[in-house]
């Protein structure tokens, strides 16, 4: 195993004896994590790929390489239509989330408030509590006999027999809950990019006669765009494959692509070939997006520290 030149470690320190004890080389350090991810992350995905081509199957019967499931998927307007519906829902959610998070991040980063880290923590703390329970909270709120409707009846705005009934089990409910769930998380990268903004640029812009609005549009917004993009992707990627929220509050119209994948592997008569195709297609789309926007997703930009 070759010992690589290490940044900052002076050559003199590499005495013969120490060299043999110098276990902490990059391969030694990376060995476990990389092997773990290859074994429990890449290989499982490869198995899904094998499944989608019917090279491998758990079910008895004749199997061999075939593109049938892929061909059926790509010719099926149904599944692609569902995918498109999920993408649209997810895009709307991501856009709304960013629109809500941006002003807040802006306020925290640029208003000069002294307690900005405390307030930031207030903002992101809900994100660190149980996801399912936050979904549950909305289920309790939105139902016909839920908190909101019973409140409206109680204060006399609505009669008991005519609650607002389209709240739960709808596309609206899914998008509302997803927005709720992801807002805190997205405020974070936007905050980081705004905070690292050099205020002197804004001052210079003002000195040159720009109004606040012009300075914002020409300086702040472009410079915070990486944070916005990162936030957008961090919502879009998990929500486009979401299945938990729609299964709890979505009803028929809130059914998403992720539900279809999940159903094909559980409640539907096991059709794991089609399920694998759907899963891989989603993964491919996400991978392309991630690669295309990789520069926005750098490590530094998603940590608040």
């Amino acid at each position: 195993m070759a010992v690589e030149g290490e940044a900052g470690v002076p050559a003199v320190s590499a005495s013969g004896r120490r060299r043999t004890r110098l276990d902490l080389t990059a391969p030694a350090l990376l060995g476990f994590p990389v092997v773990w991810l290859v074994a429990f992350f890449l290989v499982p995905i490869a198995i899904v790929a094998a499944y989608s081509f019917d090279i491998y199957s758990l079910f008895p019967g004749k199997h061999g390489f075939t593109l049938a499931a892929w061909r059926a998927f790509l010719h099926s307007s149904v599944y692609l239509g569902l995918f498109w519906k999920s993408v649209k829902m997810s895009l709307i959610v991501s856009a709304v989330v960013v629109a809500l998070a941006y002003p807040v991040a802006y306020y925290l980063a640029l208003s000069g408030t002294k307690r900005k880290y405390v307030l930031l923590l207030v903002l992101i703390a809900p994100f660190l509590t149980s996801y399912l329970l936050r979904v549950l909270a909305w289920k309790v709120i939105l139902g016909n006999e839920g908190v909101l409707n019973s409140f409206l009846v109680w204060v006399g705005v609505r009669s008991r027999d005519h609650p607002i009934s389209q709240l739960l089990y709808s596309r609206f409910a899914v998008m509302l809950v997803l927005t709720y769930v992801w807002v805190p998380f997205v405020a974070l990268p936007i905050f980081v990019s705004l905070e690292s903004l050099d205020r002197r640029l804004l001052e210079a812009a003002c000195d040159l006669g720009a109004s606040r609005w012009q300075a914002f549009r020409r300086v702040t917004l472009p410079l915070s765009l990486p944070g916005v993009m990162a936030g957008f992707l961090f919502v879009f990627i998990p929500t486009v494959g979401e299945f938990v929220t729609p299964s709890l509050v979505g009803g028929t119209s809130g059914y998403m692509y992720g539900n279809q994948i999940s159903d094909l592997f559980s409640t539907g008569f096991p059709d794991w070939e089609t399920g694998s195709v759907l899963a891989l297609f989603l993964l491919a789309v996400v991978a392309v997006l991630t690669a295309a926007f990789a520069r926005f997703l750098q490590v530094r930009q998603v940590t608040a520290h």
Partner: protein
Amino acid sequence: MEEGRDLLERRISREDLLKLAAATGAAGLVAGRTGLAGAARAELAKESGRLQVLDWAGYGNDGGQTMFAAYVKKYPKNKPQFTYMTNEADALAKLHAGLKPDLFRPYVGWTKYFATSGLVQPWDPKLISNFKHLNPFMVKAGQLNGKQYGIPEDWGFDQILYRSDKVKPKAKSWGLLFDERYKGKIAWFDDLEMLTIAGLYLGFKNPWNQSDAELKKSQNLLKSKKHLVRLIWSSETNLWEAFGSGELWIAYAWPNDWVQMKKKKLKVVYMHPKEKPIAWVGMLMLLKGTQRYHLAHAYADAWSSAKSAKWLEDNYGYGHANTLARPSSSDLMRVLQITNPRAVTLPNAYFDRDIPRRSLYAKMWEEVKAA
């Protein structure tokens, strides 16, 4: 190794048991049964560990304890441990994915599928003392090639539940599930059975084995009516919640759902459609390679007793295959026609049956949901 030897021993002693049964057969049933009981008790002593049961939510330690209370009392060391299934397909996936329960409970439409799948083995009815009280039509539905693969337990109908204060059906028909007047108030069931129901409604000769053209028509009907549907339910509690709070007025439903909604003081009708309801019965099935053969039989026996049966009828609102059981509710007696052992078959209802092209049906149903 240890397991292998256990298996071997058991197989040998099971043969002994059969010999014993044959030998005592002529001497009379009573003698035979005591002999069997003795041998069975010896067998039971050899079986260890908790009985692994794959069942539906609500039938384990989450409310269904009475069904197997007699078993737990007898074998406190082998208390059942539950894994829950969402439906048969989910159970099938779980079995293929390595779950190894001792027994599970699919419904009658799947009996043939599982019996021929190589996953299960036939029961020995002689080890189930309550077996003789079970409804013969249902017992027959649990057989394949003369072997008893399924022990019938809970049964009921698939019919239509609606709010009589909100809904005025044009006819007693499955068509109510497709009625444009009640957009956003209708619930379907998340199962390929919806295609069978569509086939019934469209008047096809064999809805369980539709031709390609028929199946396409059924699918198109469902696709074109899906916009009316608020919820495609997969758990009863989900249905109760939505129906009970007025989000739904019309639903594909089981007898218990009707009982539950009546309990909520809703004005509900459980409608018997003119195209006929579909009747079903839960079948306990025994997994091949179980390490707890006799314990599983004892468990099935507990489930089949008249006491468990009555409890099930009173608390879950289904019928039970044990013909001695009578529910306390006269409503339930009437809806289930408890005193009529033929209620589950024609002319009253279609008994649910095997779907030869199940994977095609499944694919088409998934497409309906995705559309």
